[in-house]
């Protein structure tokens, strides 16, 4: 367990339409000392990224309204949000999905179901950069 530094609490935006998955992710990140805000679909995700300026965005690929690829592209092409690292989580495991994710500008990629340790490792790495 990491020691929480209140003055520099990192803010993570979780964009995931599956409520139970989002809640689980939030609980785990909370435990690690991160502040978590949530969005239920791609469009909300992009809006939240712009208004809340999180330190990291964790996003699912398959979502209603605006999906993960498009949302990621939008975040990365907008001057206000393009510096925010994006980690993509997905149940889709095709080579094509990985390529697309990176072309959309994602900074990291993790297939579902994922191991909490690996997730936290990637989160730490992306927040440090």
């Amino acid at each position, binding site marked *: 367990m990491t020691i929480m530094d209140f003055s520099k609490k990192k803010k993570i935006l979780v964009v995931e339409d599956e409520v139970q*998955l989002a809640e689980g992710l939030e*609980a*785990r990140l909370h*435990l690690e000392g991160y502040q978590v805000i949530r969005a239920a679909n791609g469009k909300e995700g992009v809006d939240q990224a712009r208004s809340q300026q999180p330190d990291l965005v964790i996003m699912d690929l398959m979502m209603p309204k605006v999906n993960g690829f498009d949302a990621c592209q939008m975040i990365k092409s907008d001057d206000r949000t393009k510096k925010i690292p994006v980690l993509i989580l997905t*149940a889709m495991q*095709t080579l*094509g999905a990985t390529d697309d994710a990176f072309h959309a500008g994602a900074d990291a990629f993790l297939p579902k*179901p994922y191991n*909490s340790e690996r997730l936290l490792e990637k989160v730490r790495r992306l927040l440090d950069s």
Partner: protein
Amino acid sequence: MRIPVQKKNNAARDRARPDQNPEEEIAHLRKELGDMEWACRKTNDGIKILYKDLEWKNEELKKLDKLRSKFVSTVSHELRTPLAIIIQAIENLLAGAFGPVPEKQRLWLDRINENAEHLSGLLAEILDLSKLENGKEERKLERFDMSDLVRHCVDNMQPLAQKKNISLLLEIPPASPTVWASSRQLFQVMTNLMGNALKFSPAGGKITVAFEEDKSTVRVSVTDTGPGISAEDLKKIFDPFVQVENDSSENVSTKGIGLGLTICREIVHLHKGRIWAESEPGHGSRFVFEIPRESQ
């Protein structure tokens, strides 16, 4: 097949007699021409029908293929999501996110977690095989150094090997053998073979990964000091859902679904290579795969 006498007489009758008069001959030739034209016409009609039949069969096959793809992608998402939720919830509990976990409960939570991870692995294998068999697997072919891949895989396996106190030996010749193939798929093959070797090797054992190459092919072998495989099992070991009895694995969570080697075989065959195993009970096993350097 005996040709009946009757037939011979008919054939003779059909042939023009040398002492026929010209009118008879012309009439005869006209009939021959008519018959040939009839035969050609009927054949053409038949070919058109067969073509339509083929088109219809093709459409049905395409429909079936679409259905299969849909199945794979639906199963992929629908099964993985609940599994992810389960694993995540257990990990949260175990990490103490909702309060301390008493030792007694921890054991059972660990058990749930192990099996959920195992399910996840099985699901991944089934989908992998399904995609490979249906040709839905998108392969990126590239030129790379095979020894790098082997080295990378061995490095990955080190932590696990150390836990069981198994030594990993790597024998790579000085030259750098490059191949044109799918590095991701071959990495999967290496990981599978090494994973098996680790699973079946006793503590203190030794696993040797050796490398051979010539102008046109590259060969990788994984040798372990495990219990070996009987001649009977050796015949079916690459078949799907075949598992070899292993005394050291009592937990269901360490048993596979028997698809690992099948997936290896599919991948190696896709590369137009071959894969085989050499073993004797009590004398360890040696798994070898060989692929042409310019793969398809």
